[in-house]
């Protein structure tokens, strides 16, 4: 088995995965353009296989870097996409909505293909992710996983906005007919936000414990960005529960939260310093 994994590089496995996500997206688009429903089971299968291939690619990368592969923008995008799919594979089974699979394949294809297509994102070797402490690695993994949850939340928010538009404008035919009910989308949005916030809280709890004891264990800017995202998610969640932020406004707020989380990831990544170049063995004449 290990020989099979070694047959291709980590990036090749990730290309395979991205290709499957893209095929899922393309197949769904063709179905929708033909006026049909995206094949839920086919999309689910494509995403599931892509997920396994991506796991292999990330696993090879993780072995190479000796930890969770979150060392540069490329890896962060890959891990975020992988986290979103992890959740989709669970939610998709109960949600049983082919359009969620379609949107997930669209988002993950975009995240993975873009990250693979920009070599600069994977060219720089950064400092090892948050030191070699496994707890801090767990914090990072949980934080990025929560961003994956926010990615899925962003998808359900888009679906909510589309459903709201279709009901208000009385355009219910075509692919609008494949959207879930507006109340289901709202409930799922609240649950996803709660889950993402809980995971992020856990992640920040871990880093806080270390940071308070040793402020040098993580940079202030990194912790600050993470806390801003957490605070915004908490605010959105509280306003939703209090009935202040509802329907369209809640959906837009969730989209803004995901956009903010992505921006914070880039900012966190830039706050790290490149590793000094590895010494190259030079044979003298």
């Amino acid at each position, binding site marked *: 088995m290990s020989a099979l994994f070694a047959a291709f590089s980590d990036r090749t496995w990730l290309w395979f995965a991205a290709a499957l996500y893209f095929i899922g997206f393309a197949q769904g688009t063709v179905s929708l353009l033909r006026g049909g429903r995206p094949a839920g089971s086919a999309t689910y299968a494509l995403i599931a296989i892509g997920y396994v291939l991506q796991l292999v690619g990330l696993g090879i990368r993780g072995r190479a870097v000796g930890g969770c592969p979150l060392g540069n923008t490329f890896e962060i995008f890959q891990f975020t996409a992988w986290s979103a799919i992890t959740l989709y594979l669970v939610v998709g089974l109960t949600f049983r909505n082919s359009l969620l699979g379609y949107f997930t394949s669209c988002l993950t294809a975009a995240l993975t293909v873009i990250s693979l297509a920009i070599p600069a994102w994977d060219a720089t070797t950064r400092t090892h992710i948050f030191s070699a402490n496994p707890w801090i690695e767990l914090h990072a993994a949980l934080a990025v996983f929560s961003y994956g949850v926010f990615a899925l939340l962003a998808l359900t928010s888009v679906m909510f906005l589309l*459903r709201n538009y279709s009901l208000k404008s009385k355009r219910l035919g075509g692919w609008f007919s494949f959207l879930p*009910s507006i*109340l289901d989308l709202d409930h799922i949005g609240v649950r996803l936000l709660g889950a993402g916030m809980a995971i992020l809280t856990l992640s920040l709890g871990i880093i806080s414990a270390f940071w308070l004891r040793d402020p040098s264990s993580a940079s202030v800017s990194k912790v600050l960005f993470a806390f801003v995202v957490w605070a915004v998610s908490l605010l959105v969640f509280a306003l939703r529960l209090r009935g202040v932020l509802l329907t369209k406004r809640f959906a837009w707020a969730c989209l803004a939260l995901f956009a903010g989380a992505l921006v914070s990831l880039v900012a966190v990544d830039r706050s790290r310093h490149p590793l000094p170049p590895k010494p190259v063995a030079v044979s003298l004449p």
Partner: protein
Amino acid sequence: MSTDGLFVIGATHHRAPLAVREKLSLSADGAAALRVELAQIAGLKEFAVLSTCNRVEFYGVGANGDTAARVTAAFCARQQFDAAEFEKFRLNLRGREAVQHLLEVSSGLDSQMVGETEIFGQVKDAYAEAQARGSTGPVLNRVFQKGFQAAKHVRTHTAITTGQVSVANVAVDLALTIFGALKQTRILLLGAGEIGEKTAKAFQSRGAAALTVASRRFERAMELASALGASAMPFEQREARLAEFDVVVCATSAPDVVVSHAVTRAAMQKRPARPLFFIDQALPRDVDPAVSEIQNVFLYNLDDLAKIADENRAAREAEIAKCRTIVAEKADNLWRQVAPQIEALGAVAPLAPSVRHEEPA
């Protein structure tokens, strides 16, 4: 036996007007008695009776050419319907055409409301009844069973059953689009007329349990509520209690608006996170059109519902040609399988004695 031995005779909504179908309609007792009579017909080896409000059809396998005529005669005699008159409306198909007809009926292609699925259950019931009474054999068993498979194929591989085509069912579909399920959905019916009642029944048939009726005549509201197994509410309480409901079906004959923008806004302040769906079937309209501007409030009037129903109907009709191609292909395959069986049946004994001597239920 000729392969024409497989036949279907009867009368359907295509040729027989409602007044004729009323006379030809078989009661449960009448159908049972007729089955006993049909079982006495010499040469009728297999048969099944399909009786719905839009059709009465006899599917049979006969040993000789006049078997179908005998079935017709027995039916007309039982219904006291002039046989010569019946000829004007009679459906009479043989062999492969009979097979194709059954497939079209089962898949809803031959229905008055194209694509409706109720007929599938009715054909299944007719077959189950015939099978239970021992009046089917190898030919009809195969034709019906394969027919069900073909109907399922048509339903799942085309859009023939997509979208509702009646205004009441369109309203229910919309409610499902908003709430996902109707079990926990609280429905208020304003007005106790026929239209409102029809819509309320459509909601109940799709799982709605919490229904309240309010009418300007409270006695009428009580009466309808009792008939529907719902609760009644004084009409005057509609504004104060609006926030309690998720779906409001408006079908009064009131000359003015009965649900205003201000009242709806106040109700939504009490339940901002839960959608409120107005189905305004009244003319003049019962609900102020401005309520649709309120967040989480959805308003559909009679024209909106009719437009959706029309679009769905057009979409179904656009699928008919595709469905007929599939059905024709399936009918060809099925006919190739049953034709030799019909030929072989020439030597088979007629119906079992147990069927012959069965008394009507």
